[in-house]
């Protein structure tokens, strides 16, 4: 019986945010005289959410384990640039690696992910082994990544130009679709489902929650907190890498500025989606919803032609209001 009460509560909680999202959608639909309610808009929004979902999923691991990660955005940028340089046409005038043959699409994808994992392991190691507070550690790594990316893209003959001449096969990854559903939407949804399974059905997932919920208790229960920290950062890195690679594929270009402040959006989406900044609380459905809400707002406000300056104001107000309403439901329950 108790377990039932709990689920209702959880269900209600998710509901509040859904209700808010529906209200936003209806409002925008109303202003746009209904044009907002189309399949195409929905697809656009999911499309634009895809990369952000991946970044947020990665970020969520770190948040669940009770840490912070500011390196996400710059990692996306680095992965975008690196994968871009590995996916250029032979014929492109200022090909980054002139000698390189045309590689199969999987190569830049894998390289991005592995790069992300490597950077994630560094993050985890600095936090867990060197015991640098996560905020500073990942801020430092953020700077290093940006610097490295800037130096990399500055290499002759490219000289800091945005990358061009991206292979069509690689771009297809970002813009192609099967049965009308874009690959990147599929990738994001499949990732979300896998992460959901990992977190709820696999022992490691539970350990992540335990470490985030109370690291001391986790430690005395024999959980290897160091290992879990490494793993969460590594998984996060993998997602950032994948996201960066897809961002390049989607836009057909990359610059060192890609991914700028994606990490803040990701953290915000996680918290909107019910993650506790202190760790141990949260899950995939909430985070997914959080990302989509942000993208609905972004897309919707542009859709109705609200000027960018006003968008900031309205977006800020919506976020605050939504969460202020969202936290209210705890009241009724206790």
């Amino acid at each position: 019986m108790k377990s039932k009460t709990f689920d209702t509560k959880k269900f209600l909680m998710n509901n509040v945010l859904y209700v808010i999202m529906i209200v936003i959608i209806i409002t925008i639909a109303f202003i746009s005289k209904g044009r907002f309610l189309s399949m195409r808009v929905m697809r656009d929004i999911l499309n634009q959410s895809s990369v952000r979902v991946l970044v947020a999923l990665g970020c969520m691991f770190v948040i669940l384990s009770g840490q912070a990660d500011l390196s996400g955005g710059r990692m996306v940028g680095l992965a975008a640039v690196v994968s871009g340089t590995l996916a250029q046409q032979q014929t492109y005038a200022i090909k980054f690696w002139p000698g390189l043959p045309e590689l199969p699409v999987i190569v830049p994808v894998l390289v991005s992910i592995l790069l992300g994992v490597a950077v994630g392991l560094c993050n985890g190691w600095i936090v867990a082994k060197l015991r640098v507070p996560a905020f500073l550690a990942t801020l430092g790594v953020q700077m290093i990544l940006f610097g490295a990316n800037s130096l990399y893209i500055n290499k002759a003959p490219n000289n800091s130009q945005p990358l061009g001449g991206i292979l069509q096969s690689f771009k297809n990854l970002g813009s192609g679709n099967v049965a009308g559903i874009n690959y990147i939407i599929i990738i994001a949804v499949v990732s979300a489902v896998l992460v959901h399974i990992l977190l709820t059905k696999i022992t490691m997932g539970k350990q992540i929650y335990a470490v985030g919920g109370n690291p001391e208790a986790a430690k005395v229960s024999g959980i290897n907190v160091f290992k879990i920290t490494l793993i969460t950062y590594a998984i996060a890195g993998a997602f950032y890498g994948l996201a960066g690679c897809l961002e390049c594929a989607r836009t057909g270009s990359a610059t060192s500025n890609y991914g700028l402040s994606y990490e803040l959006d990701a953290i915000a989406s996680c918290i909107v989606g019910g993650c506790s900044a202190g760790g141990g609380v949260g899950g995939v459905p909430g985070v997914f919803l959080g990302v989509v809400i942000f993208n609905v707002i972004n897309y919707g406000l542009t859709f109705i032609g609200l000027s960018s300056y006003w968008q900031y104001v309205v977006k800020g107000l919506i976020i605050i209001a939504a969460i202020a309403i969202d936290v209210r439901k705890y009241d009724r329950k206790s």
Partner: protein
Amino acid sequence: AAKPSVGVLWYSFSDTFIATARQCLLNIAKADGTFDLQDADSMGDVPTQTNNLNNMLTQGRDYIVINNINDNDVDNVIQSIVDNGCKVVMANCSAASDETYAANEGKVFLVTSQATQSGTIMGEKLAEYWLANPDADRNGNGKLDYIMLLGFQTHYDTIVRNEYSIAALKEAGIEVNNIGGDIVCDYQRAQAQDKVAALLANYSDDIDAIIACNDDMALGAIEALKAGGFFGDGTYIPVCGVDATAAGQEAVADGTMLVTALNNPIKLSQGIYKVLKLMEAGEEVTTESVDIEGVHVDGAKVWISYIGITKDNLEEAAYDVNTTDF
């Protein structure tokens, strides 16, 4: 019937030049009333531009004005817009390939200044100054020792201003020497001020000139120079900027800025609007039909000239943002 609708994608509202051009275009469109015009901010970010463009296309706009920053995927970007049934004005950005214009005749136009000119103007004016003032070589090493203040690393304007200003100096037969490497100040005054202060403390006697990729950074450099004891007692270091903002013009007037390259935002807006009108009316776009001073048309390309603003031609820098003429 509903008005034809125009979606405008600007590279960054935080950019002074863009903000001015944007406001002017809004003013003109409002006063004229032919179009239903709305704009969006790419925030200097290709993915954001991509998102906003999709958004506009989904809304079913008739015209897209795009201040494109996805430089190396231009042809695809433009073609995808045309394929969605829109006509395109590329604004203040690098050109697409000739094939793209040829394949979409009458549907795709480019209205822009030649960004490279801004670099060239700075370089030429600096060369002029250098050759006219033998003691401009402050350390006497026979080289022009310069500091280059960059905006955003991969921003097209930054890249060409950096490249072409130096190219113009070399063109004039001047040997150059860079101090401080790539100094990225994100187009911001405070950053430029702090970084130039640090460089001055070390290289005070070596620096011969400062080239900045916009006026804000140039003005920051000037503040740092003033704090470092320059300008007051006749010690002078030439500082070059771009944009001819109001504050920039003041600095040119009081002699602290050598030159600022003006890309007239009003002419850009007027040019864009004129092309839109001509397309809507089904008329041909020519130098004559566009009819804006200093603007010439070459096929699908509408070129606006940069002008170098110095003490001698300050009056040419004046423009009225609130104009609704076109």
